[in-house]
């Protein structure tokens, strides 16, 4: 939602599907490709992939940008677990504002887990 708001503020039209698997190169966000690859590698388990992704961010944007990108990836890797483990719901107004976007991106399917019936 804040990505969309950021685009509205700057007058840019960002492709939100970059969030869910596209390379990011067509998102309209500068250096999206290297940043998305870094984000995936930072929360993944492949050290070689992370080394390459880190080097690409430094080359394209510098070390300070790498540190801030790492900070955001780290914080959301943590805060997602806060949200999911405490069962906090999405605020009604946010749910309403993002209904179409979440449906378009398939986000509404997250967390749909069948549980076996209790014996």
């Amino acid at each position, binding site marked *: 939602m804040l990505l969309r708001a950021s685009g509205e503020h*700057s007058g840019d039209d960002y492709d939100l599907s*970059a969030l869910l698997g596209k390379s990011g190169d067509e998102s309209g966000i500068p250096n999206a490709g290297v940043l998305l690859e870094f*984000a995936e590698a930072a929360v993944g388990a492949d050290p070689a992939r992370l080394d390459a992704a880190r080097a690409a961010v430094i080359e394209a944007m510098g070390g300070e940008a790498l540190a801030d990108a790492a900070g955001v990836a780290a914080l959301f890797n943590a805060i997602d*677990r806060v949200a999911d483990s405490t069962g906090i719901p*999405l605020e009604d107004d946010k749910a309403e504002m993002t209904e179409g976007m979440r449906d378009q991106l398939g986000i509404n399917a997250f967390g749909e887990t069948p549980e076996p019936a209790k014996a």
Partner: protein
Amino acid sequence: MSTLSFEAAPVPIRDEVAAALPNVWARIGEPGTWLTAEQRTAIAAEARNVAGCALCAERKAAISPFAVDGEHNHLGALPEVWVDIIHRVMSDPGRLSERWFREVTSSGISPREYVELIGVVVSVVGIDTFCRGIGQDAPEIPDAQDGAPSPETPEHLNIELAWVPTLDPDHDGPLQREFYPGSAAHIRRALTLVPATARSFWEMANTLYLRGDQMRDFGTEYRAISHAQIEMIAGRVSALNQCLY
């Protein structure tokens, strides 16, 4: 003294990050609100131990993680229920359920202990991910310090918003003013059953991400990456974690 330092970091680290994260890390080794320092360091060690757990891998691959029984590959320092919470939160957080939460909190851990446990786990997740991201070794888990926990139960709790009780923003009090400055977004309420846990988490969050007032100030860039780049990274990580919130 914290076992985490960024003095020799491979890239420049903002001063507020270099100050905050060692504080958050050191607290893992201190007595908490409901948990001892030994329990807190054992939780941190178990969180790091999840990566090689065969049961977690099997559950992650299953249609439902609740359909697969077995024993976790664990370090043996914590009760079975605590181990299961840590492993599920680390390996498959997007498929936790309220029914599962009700079951675990009626079989060996109270909601306030649960919240403090979650606080330790997410501190490990945040700091380990950050260190890996910048190319620095993850810090050693701090030694457990002497002392007893300092119990604190906030007044005016809301028991309807989430699975865990949360500090009710409709009452005016010092904790409300501290945790809800201008906004009581649900995520800000999530850990408030244990104020020290919430406080430590937001110390980490405000420095690694943005403070609430900075999030919507699109006219100012506070980081070396733009608001749009920040939110794109946040969105991709949350998508990978299957986080609806």
